[in-house]
Each structure stands twice: as structure tokens, then as C-alpha cells.
């Protein structure tokens, strides 16, 4: 860290005094390095951003996108004005909140357990196993889900439930189970990734803190709560803010493919993404889907700014920008 301060010291106030073209001449090589990725960003990310105007138009192809009539916020209405709209918003947010909490709590717990394991070889092994589901695409995971949950011959219905003497359950038909199934699947699939991130941070902590704590007679639990968790805070903040920014987005793979888009489950599985997709299929209206995308982006944007602001108030060091 000291090195950074040194850099800062090396360049005191230069930033403001150097005129633009001299900067360019001095750092031209940097611009060359920035160029390729910038081109990609412009083409891939920035150029399509103008598409947001579609959200405010009733597009017809004869007039083209630019020539189609403006219709104000009409395209957004379906996201707010009906009961279904309320239901999908509720589902999306509720699931994401649960996912964020689970991804945080379980991942940190597991990371600490890994760290404390005596046999590092086995720790590595289990960690690899835990990471495995993260490697599978949701297409594969949906196939796995079918293998387990399928009506008559799925593994759970054909083997586990008979063993326990329980009646077969028509999983893809009973919405009540899905608020549990989805978090389990989501955790199962993604936890390895979060564990690695937290574990990586924990491994990096200075051992001296713990040694000092041991001398003071602190128990494992106390060490965890008083040293590990506080030290992890910056990582937790970054990971959580990033997820909060995505709180209005739902994993299409999880909610569409894994649920097989079964209508009977909609009460608990319909989220913004699947609703929009469904509408797109029925209406073929690109204005409506663009409106949904814009709505998600804006809410995400605001949430990131707000949560960052809150964190900046509480602990300025941990804010990400």
C-alpha cells in the first residue's frame, strides 16, 4: 500500500496542469492499449444503448425504429398496473434477497470451515467438488432437475419418497415447494464461486491477528466474529452491492429452464424475466421488452448508487466508488 502513496507523491498536482494533447503524447501507448477493448465496449455495450428509445415507441417496421410514433410510458404499464405485475416484482425481489443472504451466510460459513480444516489436501478436494456445479450450464442443470423431480420416474419420486413411505409428489405442479427448491438449486449451483472468493480473502489475512487473539484467550467463535468477519467486510460489501444491483434481474436459466416454464408454478416462479419473455412471445412487441430492460437497468443503477451512498455514510472506506 505504501507504494501507492509513493506514486501519488511522484505526481503531485500534475493532473491538472498538463494540457490534453501533451498528456496524449506522453501516454499515447496507453491509448493504444485501451483501444481494442474500447472498440468492443462501444460496439457491444454503448451502441445498443440507444435502443432504449424503443421503450418509448410503438414500433412499426414501415416507419422504422426512428420514425415510429412516440407513445410515452405506455410500454411500461404492463410492468406495474396489474396484479401479475405486482406478483412478478414480489417474486423477483424476494428470491434475490434470499439468494443474497444465502450466498453471503453460507459461503462465509463454508469458507471459514474450509480454512479451519486440518487436512489441506481434503479441503482442496471438497472445494473442487463444491465448485463443480458452477461449471455446468443451466441447460445441464435443468436436465439434472428433470432427472430428480420428473413426475413418475424422477429419482425422488421413484426411489426416495417410496423409501420414506411418502406419496409421490408432482413437483412441477405444486407451486408451494418451489420457494425452497429454487434457493437450494441456486445455492447448490453458485455457492462454490462465492466460497472461493471469501476463502481467498481469508487465506490472505495476516496470521498475527489470530495469534494475538489466541494469546488473549479468544475462542474460535470469538476470533471468527471479531477478526475474520470484520476483515472480510470490504469483500462482502463489493459482492453484495454487485448483487443488489442485479436485484431486479432473475436468472433466466433458473426460472425458465429449471422450472420448465410450467404455468402451474407461476404463483411462485414467475419473475420479471420470464414474464417479459412470455409477453414477447405472445405480443411480439419489442417496445414492451425494451421497456422492461430499461426498467431493470434503472432500478439496478439507482440501487447500486443508493447502497453505495449508505455504505459511504457508515464506513467511507468500504464504499466501492
Amino acid at each position, binding site marked *: 500500500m505504501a507504494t501507492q502513496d509513493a506514486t501519488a507523491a511522484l505526481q503531485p498536482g500534475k*493532473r491538472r496542469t498538463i494540457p490534453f494533447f501533451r498528456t496524449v503524447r506522453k501516454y499515447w501507448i496507453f491509448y493504444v492499449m485501451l483501444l481494442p477493448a474500447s472498440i468492443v465496449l*462501444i460496439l457491444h455495450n*454503448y*451502441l445498443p*444503448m*440507444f435502443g432504449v428509445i424503443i421503450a418509448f415507441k*410503438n*414500433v*412499426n*417496421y*414501415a*416507419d*422504422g*425504429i*426512428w*420514425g415510429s410514433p412516440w407513445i410515452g410510458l405506455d410500454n411500461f*404499464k*404492463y410492468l406495474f*398496473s*396489474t*396484479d*401479475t*405485475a405486482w406478483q412478478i416484482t414480489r417474486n423477483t425481489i424476494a428470491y434475490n434477497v434470499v439468494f443474497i443472504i444465502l450466498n453471503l451466510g453460507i459461503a462465509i460459513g463454508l469458507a471459514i470451515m474450509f480454512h479451519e480444516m486440518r487436512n489441506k489436501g481434503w479441503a482442496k478436494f471438497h472445494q473442487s467438488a463444491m465448485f463443480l456445479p458452477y461449471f455446468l450450464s443451466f441447460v445441464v442443470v435443468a436436465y439434472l432437475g*428433470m432427472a430428480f423431480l*420428473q*413426475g*413418475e420416474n424422477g429419482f425422488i419420486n421413484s426411489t426416495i419418497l417410496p423409501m420414506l413411505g411418502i406419496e409421490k409428489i*408432482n413437483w*412441477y*405442479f405444486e407451486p408451494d415447494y418451489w420457494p425452497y427448491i429454487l434457493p437450494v438449486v441456486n445455492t447448490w449451483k453458485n455457492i462454490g464461486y462465492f466460497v472461493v472468493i471469501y476463502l481467498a480473502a481469508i487465506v490472505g489475512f495476516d496470521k498475527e491477528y489470530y495469534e494475538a487473539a489466541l494469546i488473549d484467550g479468544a475462542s474460535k467463535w470469538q476470533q471468527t466474529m471479531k477478526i475474520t468477519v470484520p476483515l472480510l467486510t470490504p469483500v462482502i460489501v463489493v459482492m453484495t452491492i454487485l448483487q443488489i444491483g442485479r436485484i431486479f434481474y432473475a436468472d433466466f436459466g433458473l426460472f425458465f429452464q429449471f422450472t*420448465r416454464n*410450467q*404455468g*402451474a408454478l*407461476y*404463483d411462485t416462479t*414467475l419473475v420479471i424475466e420470464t*414474464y417479459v419473455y*412470455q*409477453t*414477447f*412471445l*405472445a*405480443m*411480439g*412487441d*419489442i417496445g*414492451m421488452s425494451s421497456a422492461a430492460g430499461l426498467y431493470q437497468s434503472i432500478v439496478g443503477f439507482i440501487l447500486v448508487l443508493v447502497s453505495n451512498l449508505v455504505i459511504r455514510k457508515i464506513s467511507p472506506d468500504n464504499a466501492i466508488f
Partner: protein
Amino acid sequence: MKTTKKSMMLMLALVFAMSLVLAACGGNNSGNTNSNTGSENAGGSNESSEGAAGSSLEPYVLKMAYPGTKQQDHDKVMAEVNKYLTEKINATLELQPIEWGQWDQKVNLMIASREPMDIYFTAQWSGYAVNVSKGAFLDLAELLETEAGQAIVETLDPAYLEGSKINGKNYGVPTNKEIAGQGGFIYRTDIAEELGLDMSTIQSAADLKPILQAVKKAKPEMIPLFMRDGETFNVHYYAQFDFLGDANIPGVVLKDQDDATVKPRFEFDRYKENLQIARELYVDGLINQDATTTTLSTQDAMKAGNVFMTVQPLKPGKAEEMAAVTNLTGKLAQIAITERTIATSETAGSMLAISTTSEDPERAMMFINLLHTDPYLNNLFNFGIEDDHFTREGNIISPTETTSAYSPGGAWMFGNQFLNYVWDTEDPQKWEQFKEFNEGAKVSPGLGFTFDAEPVKTQVAAAVNVRKEYDPALDTGSVDPDEVLPDYIEKLKASGLDEIIAEKQSQFDEFLANK
């Protein structure tokens, strides 16, 4: 912080600059469309001769998208097709089969992005109305006046063009096939015979129970009646609901009645009766218990060999057609239940539309004309190359070893089915039966009307999802209608059912007034 602000300014400047670039692109696009219409007119003027005078035409590549699986011998057959087309209309065909699962998404995007395309497959159930209202398809009025167009008009029953109009204009050329629709059952004759069942007792869904029970008793491993969403007693072809457009949007009239009042389905007695019947059968285990969630298509279920009966839309030879794809040749028969009716769902059930992005709509129409009038091309397209993919005696064809390398199964999408050869397993009189079938069918009051959902799209978006939540479970009898139907109705009302019905009714009234 200051630098951040400056950065933001720079960014904005950049973004602005880029918007100009994009605007320029957009401008180009509209320029293209203009030049398209230009060339169309030009084509129209020097194109009066048409027909065999293919050589007087500029060479042109026709692009056509349709839903289906690309066949192994696709290229081989296309080479043949192109040889013939070059001779006839100096064009070659670039055919893009898109698999069903991707069709909606891909076509929506292709249309939205104005991809150059000449011909799209379309149908009332595949976004026809939406795409027309967005201006994706060409108004065919002028093209149907041309020589190529007239030849098609002459072969088609006038009900087709009448029944596929939107706001009085035609945007698609319907496939010439059965024009009437009918609902009924397809069942396994071998099993019925074995058990000595008298199938003639079946006059309606209510008569099914004893038969199905007998099947279940004698063959417990069999599914007496296979159902899935879309193949139930309340599907439009069976219950004779005319949805006046998209069948996801509530509000129907009855095809077999003359009443023009649009009502939600649950206000009709037959809807509730059918739900009760299905429920009874389901509770008795006569319907597959995973009817709402099955991943099997009916064909696959039949193929597995343990299905006795299904609900199907019927036409002459339907059972034989199904038998051929399920390896049950000679073991299937059909029972017609409903009256034969003609509604927009049939007349606009399969069409070829010319895209507004086509650079030579005239030529596209010539190609459609050939599909409708030229037996050689039509059959080449549908069955492949003679003596390779099939052998022929007169109009009867037999499969060969390579038949499976080219069997797109899309004869109902392309042109004129009455030109098709008939497989040796089918009734040689198939097309005569089709004609008989078409004659004397009852015309639905809604024929020729298609609902435009745009004014109520918010409500429709919600209603479509509610439908998907309840319909499959209710229609297959998987849930108790007495308990669930009230919920369904309540949710539909909450999503704006009344507005949708009112809008549908007012559009429909206007249509009837102008008729």
C-alpha cells in the same frame, strides 16, 4: 471527484457522438426500404410477361424462412429445386428451416431487425396479426392481381382469402388444404378390437368413460386417454371456440353457433361441462396423471405404445398420417365428434407471407405460385427426389431406404396439398375426401376477423400469464374445477378481462358492420 465529473462530461460527449453514428445507420436503413419499394415498382412494370419466360428475368436469390428441422439431404434437394427454379423464374432459393423451439424468438428478432427476407411462413397462431400490424408483411392486393397471383386465387376456395384478411386486406397466401376444422379422438384400433370395444357408442366426451375404464381394467399399464395442454376437451377445435385471433387472449364466440357476442369461455356451459368430464376421468386415473407437466409430445407418447386415445384436430386421413410417424401403421383410427366448421383458425392456419424487406416481391409471388400450381416443384419440395427419397406409381409413392434423409413433414405449409403425392399407406382417395370434408362446413361468425391486441396490451400481457397458470391444470382435469375455476375467473378479472372482452367486442362489431 472533480475528475469524475470531467470524465462524465467526456462520456456524454462520446455517447452523443455515437448517437449520431447510429442515427446515420438508421437513416441508411430507411433508405433501403425506400429503394426496395422502388425496385418493386420497377419489377412490376417490366414483369407483365411472367411464366415460362424465366430467362427475361434478372437472376434473383429468394430467401424463405419456415419452421422445421433441416433435413440431412437438404442441400441435395435444394440443388434440384434451384435447377428447376432457375429454368422457370430465373431464381434460386435460399431456404432457412428454423426449429420449432427457436421459431418464435428468431423470427421476432429477424422481423424486428428488418432482415432481408422474401417469404416467411406465418399463421394465425404464429404471430400473423401482430406482424401485420407492425408492418412486417406486404399487402398482397396488387400482387394477387398479377398473372402469378391470379393463378393462385383461381385454385383457392374463396373462403381462404376471405378468412385470412386483416382489416380487409390479405397479407398471406393460405396453403390450399382442408379448410374446415373438426375435433375428435384418435385411438388404437388393435386394442379396441382385442377388447371387443364398441367405439361407435362414442358421440361426445361424456361417452368416453366406460370405454376408457374397460381399457384400464384390461391393460393397467396403458394410459387410456393421453392429454396435455392443447389437447383437451376445451381446446378451440374441440369445444368450437373461436378466439377471433390469438388463442391466448380470452374472449370467444362459438364457431358452431351464430351468436356474435364475445364472452369469456367460462360463461359457456360446454366449458364447464368439459371441465367436469375431464376431472372425472382424471380422478379415475383414466388420464395420464402428469398431463400438465409432461415433456412428451403426443406423437412420442403414442410411439411409446402405451397410449390408447388422444384428443386431436381431425381431417381426412389424420389417423393414417399420425400412424406413419408413430410406427403404428394400420393401428389407428379416428372418431369425429364435432361439427365441421370454418373459422379463421383454419383459413389462416398456414400461410406464406411476403416480407416488406423483400427486394423483389413479384418474384416471391411467382415462387408461391409455383408451389400452388406446379406438382413437380411442390412434390420435390415436400418429398425429395424421385427414385431416391421415394418411388412413385401414378400419384402413389412408397418409401425407400433414404426417405428419412429427406422428410421435412411440411406439406401443410407449402402451397397446395391437393398436388401432393399420397403415401402407399394412406387412402388413395385422400384429396377427394379433403374436398368433401371442405364442402358444407358451417362458417363461424368470426371468419375473417382478427383481433388487434394493441389497445389492451397491458391487460393481455397479464391475462396470457394467468391463462398459462390455470388452463393446463384445469383442462386436463388435474385440479378440481369447483375449487379452482373461481380463482381463475377472479384472477382473469383482476388482470383486466372485462376491458379485453369489451375491446374485442367493439372491434368485432365494427368488422361485422363493415362486412
